[in-house]
């Protein structure tokens, strides 16, 4: 059973604002442990477009920084898990998520 996540990006970090991210990483974890990643570049920053991307791609989990309640509730309503307030480099975040240790509010810059 594969698992899909979406992370809005700001350079190589989780974007601090969901609604202002123009890039998003879509990662797929296959049951055999293989990961496939692709980066989608949006024509302009839009929380609505990111939500549409998450639902059309059948994303299971969205990992992001700050997200406003309206879009948070929408994603939850669509059955998508949202881990917000996450601060850190994308690689570390994905690694921690794969290990099953990522929770909302994690800050990887503070030890």
């Amino acid at each position, binding site marked *: 059973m594969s698992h899909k996540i979406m992370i809005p990006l700001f350079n190589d970090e989780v974007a*601090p604002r969901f609604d*202002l991210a123009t890039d998003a990483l879509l990662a797929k974890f296959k049951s055999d442990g293989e990961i496939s990643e692709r980066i989608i570049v949006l024509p302009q920053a839009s929380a609505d477009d990111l939500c549409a991307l998450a639902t059309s791609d059948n994303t299971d989990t969205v990992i992001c920084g*700050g*997200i*406003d*309640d309206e879009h*948070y509730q929408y994603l939850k309503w669509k059955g998508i898990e949202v881990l917000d307030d996450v*601060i850190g480099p994308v690689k570390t975040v994905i690694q921690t998520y794969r290990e099953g240790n990522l929770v909302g509010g994690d800050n990887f810059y*503070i030890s």
Partner: protein
Amino acid sequence: MGQQFMLPDLLNEVPIGIAVLDIEGRIKLVNRAWQTLTGVAPNSMQGLKCYLGLRCDYCFKGCPVMADKADFQTVSVDADIIDRTRTKIPIRLNISPIVNSNNVISGYMETIQDIRQVAELSSTASKAYSLGGLIGTSPEMVKIFSMVPSIAGTDSSVLITGETGTGKDVLAEAIHNASDRAGAPFIKVNCGALPETLLESELFGHVKGAFTGANEDRPGRIKLAHNGSFFLTEIGDLPLPLQVKLLSFLDDKVIQPLGSPRGFNADVRVIVATHRDLKKMVQEKTFRADLLFRLNVVHLHLPPLRERGDDILLLKNHFLMEYCNKFNKKIKGFSKKAAKILSAYRYPGNVRELSNIVEYAVNFCDRDIISSSHLPAYLTEQDILRPVAESAYPAQERTVPLEYSSAQSWDDAEKQMIMDTLLKCGGRKGEAAKILGWSRSTLWRKMKKHSITG
């Protein structure tokens, strides 16, 4: 004071959110109000880049700290943040460089203020038929109202034209108030109000000793408008030498005070207004063409009141209410005749004149209805109702579907219109007069004026 104070403790008592950043934009210190507004846990943001803690939209829209600018003046903008309870909060953000004794930037001071209440107030204050102090439902005004928010969002120069009394100043202020610069000053200068020599020092400032009588440094109005908007009204009256200086400022945004070797980089949005025809002035060489091109980025034209249809009724009642409140009077409205006179009048002084007329009437009205005797005498003495009777013909009968593009002026157009109509009617003057919506005598008089025989 003889006592030592701990700076962080002092900052905690300040009701404005304050963050001190190092030269790389990393958070060194935040006060309690900053923590409360952003919702972060105490000390959890220390050492982090500011954008990770503040999560402000301005971080990604030109923040000089993020852009690593070596030199900038204080920035003041309206922005928004998303706090830890997932609420989007409108804020007023100020960023100032902290300069050390060697005049080198050693860090930044950031302040944030919650402006939710202000935003709510301004949204309830704005009605569907008004913007700032402008009121109207005519298509021309509605078009302007719809354009203002998008124009306000940019820093482009705005040229406002319109007859006297149409509300150019009010529109300029409405643009400023709708922009991110709303918290900063709106400075207005009337180019026609001061002589040339004074105007230069008024606009650009001077240093002590620059000229006889310059006893102290003066910053100049443009510098005072730093981070805000600078409104030059009656730009058509700006003397040519100053036009060059203004053009130079618009080019590089640097003002050179009189007698000062150093310029000042002013972050100012320029709005200008005039009742004059600047294109005609360019042809007459009394206004510089390059300055017109520079200013004419966004052009808004305010229509005269006589072309705004039912807006006269709306404004008349608005001013009646306003002056009744002001003078503590209980006047219900206008008599039929007074309303007819007010609707028929041409208002050369536009909205300002209508306001004055209503103020006069409210002052002199001793009953609960304003009648024609309460209106200023010049309205009732001349037969202003006559044009209404003349225009009583249905519009289609008066309209002559002809092209007058070759006409040089109204006189030419009128002559051509008469000739065309006479041709159409086979020279029958009675029929031509009817089509043109004139009496036979008016047609005869105009034919005589244009030397049309036959």
